[in-house]
């Protein structure tokens, strides 16, 4: 049965014609996709820098205007983040 499947697929492969476009078509496709990828990369970098600046400026405003709130947030985050990480890790191990 297995050899019959392989033989039939091989016959199919040999008799099935595929039209292959010329090299220029492939190059054109590559160039336009590369352009799209570059645009996407530039957009992502801009978004990353922008969100970084927003977070940084919010942090600076908090430090200079409401230092107490800033300190509380820092304390809560530095205690809760390791706990959350530990709980997530344990959940992943029990799911395995």
């Amino acid at each position: 049965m297995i050899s019959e499947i392989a033989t039939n697929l091989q016959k199919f492969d040999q008799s099935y014609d595929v039209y292959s476009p010329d090299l220029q078509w492939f190059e054109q496709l590559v160039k336009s996709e590369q352009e799209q990828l570059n645009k996407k990369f530039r957009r992502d970098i801009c978004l990353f820098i922008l969100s970084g600046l927003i977070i940084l400026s919010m942090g600076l405003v908090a430090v200079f205007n409401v230092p107490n709130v800033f300190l509380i947030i820092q304390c809560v985050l530095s205690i809760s983040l390791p706990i959350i990480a530990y709980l997530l890790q344990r959940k992943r191990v029990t799911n395995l």
Partner: protein
Amino acid sequence: MGEKELIESAKRGDSLAFAILFKENYQFLVKYLVKVTMNPDIAEDLAQETMVKCLEKIRLYNGKAKFSSWLITIATNQYIDSIRKRKREQNWNKQEQFKRKLQWQLESKNEEWTDVMDSLAKLSDDVRIPIVLKHYYGYSYEEISEMIGIATGTVKSRVHNGILMVRKELNRIEKEENLPHEHKIQS
């Protein structure tokens, strides 16, 4: 320029190197996709989507597997994703239509659309893909498991069950073909 040099140039962003690599592998890729999808239109669309994905991921290609194997890994995953998104395989009428198109294409070249091909076309994609990869392209169960991201045991059972289904379907076709003949003899 050999394949390795072409890949290195492609990694540096050389569009001509990419184009040569794609052109050299295009027929292989489309033929693989036609066998897996049993649908020439989807196969050509997926081949193009695979090339675009390959452009994005070329830096991740480590050269361990052949470039063509890497391409069909991407193509298979693209196809599995597209099934999940669009539920392409549920459209039975269209699938039949495409099967007939393939049939016609073969018959126009005086080749027969065999019962084995018909049985393979009736299998679901998640069974047909591992069968084609295992018994036509000769990949090991472990390689297929890595390629399509499922456990080796699952690949083995899908291949095994798929072969049984093909055998069953062929027996059914054979019985159906013999039935009118027996009637004729009796009358």
